[in-house]
């Protein structure tokens, strides 16, 4: 699969990463390499093999439904750029 510069710009936008003009060519080359690797893997015959969602064949452990955390918001908010009345303040976003 051939990747275009437009694809790179779109992926960068979705990931909220700024890539400058010169960078696009470099990223395009790197991503093309990765896609090449994927194409080679896709050539392997996997008919009849159940897909795995994870690399290891182990299952999830669960915990009891107990409240174990205490209020540490003052500590957490000591590294926040701006807070007010216990809220984190961010540039206005509205949908």
């Amino acid at each position, binding site marked *: 699969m051939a990747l275009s510069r437009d694809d790179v710009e779109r992926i960068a936008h*979705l990931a909220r990463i700024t890539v400058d003009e010169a960078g696009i060519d470099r990223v395009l080359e790197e991503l093309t390499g990765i896609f090449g690797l994927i194409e080679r893997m896709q050539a392997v015959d996997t008919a009849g093999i159940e897909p795995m*969602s*994870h690399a290891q064949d182990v299952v*999830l452990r*669960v915990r009891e439904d107990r*409240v174990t*955390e205490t209020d540490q918001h003052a500590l957490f908010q000591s590294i926040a750029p701006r807070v007010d009345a216990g809220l984190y303040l961010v540039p206005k976003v509205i949908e």
Partner: protein
Amino acid sequence: MMKWETVIGLEVHAQLNTRSKIFSGASTAFGAAPNTQACAVDIALPGVLPVLNREAVAKAIRFGLAIVGRINRRSIFARKNYFYPDLPKGYQISQYEMPIVQGGTIGIFVDGKEKTIRLTRAHLEEDAGKSLHEDFRGMSGIDLNRAGTPLLEIVSEPDMRSAAEAVAYAKALHALVRWIDICDGNMQEGSFRCDANVSVRPAGSDRLGTRCEIKNLNSFRFLERAIEYEAKRQIVVLEEGGTIVQETRLYDSDKDETRSMRTKEEAHDYRYFPDPDLLPLVVNPDMLERIRSEMPELPEQKRNRYLGYGLTANEADGLTQSREMAEFYEGLVQALGGGYKLAASWLLGEFTAALNRAGIDVSESPVGSERAAGLLRRVADNTISRRSAGEVFDAMWNGKMEADAIIENRGLKQISDSGELERICDEIIGANPKQVADYRAGKEKAFNSLVGQVMKATRGKANPQQVNEILRRRLAQ
């Protein structure tokens, strides 16, 4: 003119009523001061890992069993990627390809007709935080207390054909999640939220039209009005030769209209992939059997049992609207040792009226099932009339005295001496020659007026059936 059909599917987010969050040990209690219940996992500090809450899984399974869906032995958590300040990780942990529950059905009644709504799936996911857009000098305030609260997203097939059907389905689902105790159902607090997918098509067509998703429907009334508005809007667009754009729309209850949210098509590429932090969830047979054995009798099962007691469909429906009411009914008939019909009609009549007047729930009633049984026992054995029972009930509701003591104190025992009753009936007949003549001329109303006067003369202490019988006999002479 073309006839149109509305097609509706609902997505409901039900907050699971666990004590702690789905992936962290922070509290889920509603109403805490901002960010006091958002721990390192919830605010996505680097290096933290999610650990799944067993109870959230159990509650999802309870739901799957209640709707007779398939409980997937193996399900996968996935990351749904998007950027918004109330989603600190930059992704929501959800389930995508392999949800915990698939299939199942919910039965609804609309205009006396039964209909089955198919469910597509129900999956576990985490809630996001809240953004507050007012009063922060041009900035938005973020409260992450809600972030990580367990949600069960319940998705229906597009099986509903009117706003009324959609509301009936949402109400049935709302009653069910409370009945099986997985969600408190509090819509004001956002514990039970509906999104509606609405499209229209020419009547008789089997192709689906382009749909719009309506968000922000936090009451059954808004759900109904938003669907009605949206279907009309789409019909107008199509009849004017336009096309429907697939989009998300917001319902504005003040203006009673839906409007387009800022379109963000490209942002809708959620790039789902299995969350490497969470291994596959496997539900073992022991856990499934334990949960199955703890399931309460479901509304439909209770309803069928009540029909077997000789109740009408309306009565059986009424008593199974909430688990509290059904349990009150069962406590009452157990204490009475029967009296199925009497208990049902009294609970749905006088008792429900009293609850409504006081604006309280069954669980808050000052008269419990034991005390109520004391009252109905005296109605069943004809000690008091149904009318006097109302007076006794009022006194029980407002005080501590039991039925028998109130009946005794107020002298409410029915006149069982038939000689005394016959004397009063004769008096009333003698004093009302006009009504007697009317009755004999075939006017049934005149008879009711005579019964009323006898009841008045006895201050409600006569047995109306006995009065009826005596009056008919005397008037026939």
